[in-house]
């Protein structure tokens, strides 16, 4: 299947960033339509579309929207998770920079559907460009009367603010993001069934809708064209509907964002990105750093879809697809992944705080040539002790890639431990690996 540009259709168009250019291309029509509809009808439309959360977990969006109390007793908040931090993912960045109004329109639609009062766009601190673009778009939307008091004469008031983070991957986890927005350390909060859902008690204990940038950006299209139309996209898959932006990076010729319909294969995606650079395909991390790694054979057979990817041995995740060429040392790559999680663990729960650091220490030792054969078994054990035992998903996300790589590329680890250096070598490998390089040949 070729690329299906929906959200990214006008991404290259500079005029599209301003409200005038956006409205010229049919922007805010979805919102206007929504405002003319009953609130429940909007949610039903989303339900019909089969839209699922694009942040990584793939939770059906309409359930969140529908979960907000209909009889309002407290302020309702609409929260946009723009704290994109997953290594390999950069789709939200492009969406916010190039099509900020799309996301804002989606948030206002969500606000209308759930009687929202205030919307917050939580953008990671590094994304200053995005924040500027979103802020400008919000200000424009106010002037055009899509935000503020008595929106389009409906009598409904809705405010929206930009909030910037300050450097923490953990804040991309929805409850940690709420903690961070409320001025706390970005640590996750108790989740259902241990505490009420955010739709019941989220920000400041009030009902809160929280979605990813891409999820919100889909809403205007669904409203304009109808949920049923949206559901026709990706109909070849089990339960994944619509389009998904994949951020392709690594050893490919044309890294960038590619929007595809569900049901496309990873091989087609690789082709869109211009094929491999510097060697043949060795492995692929299809959905951001936290998903299990696939080898070349699995990659070529994988179909993109929430359930289909699980069958292939990995996950859609947030769509950060990294292709690795034959000169990549999997051990070093996995060590770097583990280092990322050890540095970004918030420290709240024991398995993640201690386990991620321990895994990193072991992999670092192996990478420096001090590995022991029993380390492989130990790493597997540690992974199983973290997976599912941690407070939030970060622990699981730290364990999956390590466990996955040990399953898919056991020979690489064994070779490294036995010989004290990597199975791959050459200038390409040396260009990648950090100091100190393994002692054997370099």
């Amino acid at each position, binding site marked *: 299947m070729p690329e299906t540009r929906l959200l990214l259709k006008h991404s290259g168009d500079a005029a599209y960033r301003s409200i005038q250019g956006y409205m010229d291309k049919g922007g805010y029509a979805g919102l206007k339509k929504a405002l003319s509809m009953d609130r429940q009808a909007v949610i039903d439309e989303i339900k019909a579309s089969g839209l699922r959360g694009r942040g990584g977990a793939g939770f059906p969006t309409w359930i969140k929207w529908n979960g907000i109390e209909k009889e309002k007793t407290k302020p309702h908040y609409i929260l946009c998770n723009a704290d994109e931090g997953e290594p390999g993912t950069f789709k939200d960045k492009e969406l916010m920079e190039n099509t900020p109004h799309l996301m804002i329109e989606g948030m206002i639609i969500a606000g209308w559907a759930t009687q929202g009062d205030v919307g917050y766009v939580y953008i990671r601190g*590094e994304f200053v460009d995005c924040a500027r673009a979103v802020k400008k778009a919000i200000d424009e939307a106010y002037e055009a009367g899509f935000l503020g008091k008595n929106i389009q004469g409906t009598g409904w008031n809705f405010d929206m603010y930009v909030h*910037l983070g300050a450097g923490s991957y953990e804040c991309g986890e929805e409850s940690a993001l709420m903690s961070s927005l409320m001025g706390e350390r970005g640590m996750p909060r108790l989740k259902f069934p241990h505490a009420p859902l955010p739709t019941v008690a989220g920000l400041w204990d009030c009902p809160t809708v929280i979605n990813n940038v891409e999820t919100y950006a889909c809403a205007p299209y669904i409203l304009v064209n109808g949920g049923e139309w949206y559901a026709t996209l990706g109909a070849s898959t089990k339960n994944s509907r619509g389009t998904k932006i994949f951020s392709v990076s690594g*050893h490919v010729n044309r890294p960038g964002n590619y929007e595809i319909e569900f049901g496309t294969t990873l091989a087609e995606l690789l082709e869109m990105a211009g094929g491999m650079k510097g060697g043949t395909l060795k492995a692929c991390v299809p959905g951001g750093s936290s998903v299990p790694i696939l080898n070349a054979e699995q990659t070529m057979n994988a179909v993109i879809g929430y359930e289909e990817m699980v069958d292939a041995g990995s996950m859609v995740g947030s769509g*950060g697809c990294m292709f690795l060429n034959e000169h990549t040392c999997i051990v070093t790559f996995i060590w*770097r992944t583990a280092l990322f999680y050890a540095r970004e663990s918030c420290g709240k729960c024991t398995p993640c705080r201690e386990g991620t650091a321990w895994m990193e220490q072991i992999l670092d030792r192996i990478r420096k040539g001090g590995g022991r054969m029993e380390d492989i078994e130990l790493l597997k054990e540690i992974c199983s002790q973290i997976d599912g035992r941690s407070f939030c998903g970060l622990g699981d996300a730290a364990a999956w890639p390590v466990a996955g790589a040990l399953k898919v590329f056991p020979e690489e680890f064994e070779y490294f431990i036995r010989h004290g250096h990597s199975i791959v070598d050459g200038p390409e490998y040396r260009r990648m690996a950090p100091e100190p390089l393994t002692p054997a040949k370099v």
Partner: protein
Amino acid sequence: MDVIQISDLRGRPRAPRPEEVNLNFSEKAVRELEQLLNHYPDKKSAILPCLWIAQREYGGYLPSEAIAEVALRLDRSYAEIEGVATFYTMYHVGHPTGKHLIEVCTCLSCHLCGAYRLADHIKSKLGIDWGETTPDGMFTIEEVECLDACDRAPVLQISDQYYGPVDDKTVDAILEKLKSETSPSTVRLADEIVQAQLHKRDQEKVSGN
């Protein structure tokens, strides 16, 4: 092993009393904070934005006076503010950075595209290691986790700008350009972040009240 004597308590520092804290925010900063407080139902939520303001006001990092001032302005305890500030990597708590902070992403995609070799180049050129500052106080180089610009790997961030993909030559050019730059990039980044959160109508709201 050195043991800190329990009996050496007389010299222990105590936290400053509220009246001992100097409030150094400029008038502009106070006004900005006032506007930002309008965004949230409680004062606590403004901790992150307020720390950004403080980082700008105190010259690109957060000395203990800055923490104390933020705590006082938002009615929180010092320890809590310090806890929040030390959690996030973009706040530089306690010690100043160089005038220009070069943040090199070495995470997965950048690692695949040779970020470590690039970092080695910068390190040897400036003669410093991760987290160190050049003797003239111009540059600090820091390793950061994924900046989410993997399509431009290897990428580095200076102030609010991303540079990528970069190689040794472009890095040299960037460093040259920065040397002539007068305003500190750390302050500029904090300022940009504060400005990005100040909406047009905030001013109206505050002045309208």
